[in-house]
């Protein structure tokens, strides 16, 4: 990919991340941290590719580690976030609008 185009994407993505968070209430800080932790679990995709085209044993080793870690990131991130967000279940209590 052309570097400048990547730059555009980085800029837009950064702006998007900033905007999405900027109005968040304090009680969501921790769940959001956890949620975004899950999202960078997409590194799994990269790890799969890296392991997938690994040639040498060393590469394979690192690739294997990468996938394990990445899978842990994704799976663990999801579970933990889901559990934290359980308390925001729409209950009988009135939602703040």
């Amino acid at each position, binding site marked *: 990919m052309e570097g400048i185009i990547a730059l555009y994407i980085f800029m837009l993505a950064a702006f998007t991340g900033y905007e999405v968070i900027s109005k*968040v209430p304090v009680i969501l800080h921790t769940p959001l941290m956890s949620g975004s932790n899950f999202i960078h679990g997409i590194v799994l995709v990269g790890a799969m*590719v890296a392991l997938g085209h690994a040639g040498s044993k060393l590469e394979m080793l690192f690739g294997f580690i990468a996938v394990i870690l990445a899978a842990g990131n994704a799976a663990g991130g999801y579970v933990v976030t889901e559990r934290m967000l359980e308390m925001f279940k729409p209950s009988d209590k009135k939602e703040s609008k």
Partner: protein
Amino acid sequence: MDFMIKASYFIAAGLFIYGLKKMSSPASARDGIVWAGVGMILATLATFFHESIHGLTNYLLIIIAIAIGGYLAWTSGKKVAMTDMPQMVALYNGMGGGAAAAIAAVELIQRSGMNFTEQALAVVGGLIGTIAFSGSLIAYAKLQGIMRKTIRFPMQQLLNASAFIITVILGLVIAFSGTDYGLGILFIFFLLALVFGVMMTVPIGGADMPVVISLFNALTGLAVGFEGYVLDNPAMMIAGTVVGSAGFLLTQLMAKAMNRPISNVLFSNFGDATGKAQDVSGSMKEIEASDVSVMMAFAQKVVIVPGYGMAVAQAQHKIWELVKQLQERNVTVKFAIHPVAGRMPGHMNVLLAEAGVPYDIIYDLDEINEEFATTDVTLVIGANDVVNPAARTDPNSPIFGMPILNADKSKNIIVIKRGKGKGFSGIENHLFFADNTRMLYGDAQAVASELVSTVKEV
């Protein structure tokens, strides 16, 4: 096929952003994580068809690795106690950072025909990912209680800085040397990065850990974004960068909520809460309005003890507003009026009546004193002498023998006052130092407004 994969990545990226957006509002947060999860599954499945994956071994390895990592993380995440969540986030985040670093390692070992930009970003991503990895693991260890000591020594910061600079120089060397670098230098580079991550984290105290974890989270995001560029994967680029930028903002917000600049958290070694809590004399522990709001909003029963400070601040209207909000959330709220609260007989009655508080939720000492034991949160607003346990326990106290409100018997006590001011009788109040007491400093009216607006957001 290629198109389908790309399309899946595209959709996944969109879902991540959409999910994150939903997660930023309490009402939709739960949907958010589900949508993001859908994106993740889509992207992962699509990747199995990725052109650059070759060889059955590799496929097998991938599946095994996913199974191992996924299973362990999933089960551990499921059974961990709610109170241990922060360290789990640290752990999983460290894994993500490690994964990014490992990807960088693979690509750098493979010397897979990267152009300069790619190689440079691989190095940077590797560096950041490694730091996030080892740093997060230390954070995990500290919160989990595996590592109890906060290690500090003179010149520590200087040492850390040197380590960091050396690592960066090595990284530059690797980035600029095309394919000419040896495995050795690569090894040292990653090792140093690992060490630096540990070194920068060990001196930080437990209370500051959430901020640090958030920072590492942002770093992992960045690393993932950079490796995404290396692998020509826009979904990773976008997801990583979004998380990176959101994470930095979040770190800042969290530090601000603790009323400290980030630099202070990272470098001053000031926030050592572990050491503090063991101090026997007891100390007054501060709390944020927003946290008080959450406590009250999710409580069954809240008792409010107003005192002279509420009168001085003329906070009665705000307090009543707060109470109405809590009532709307089905919290039982009662006012406990001490016979001599304020400065004249019936001082509190006059003010509460002015604010429109109905008589039937106002209780006097005899009626309510039994109830404190079953109260989740007692909110003491500008009262002092009337909740001073010394009246029961300390025969030398000038107020000994005066009946007091047994606020100290309740599960949590929140005290609103401006500072360390004494009450009418001019004596210390041990209630303020109790384990289950938190101080919420500020003018009662201002603090009450803050509570009103933060309760709304819960």
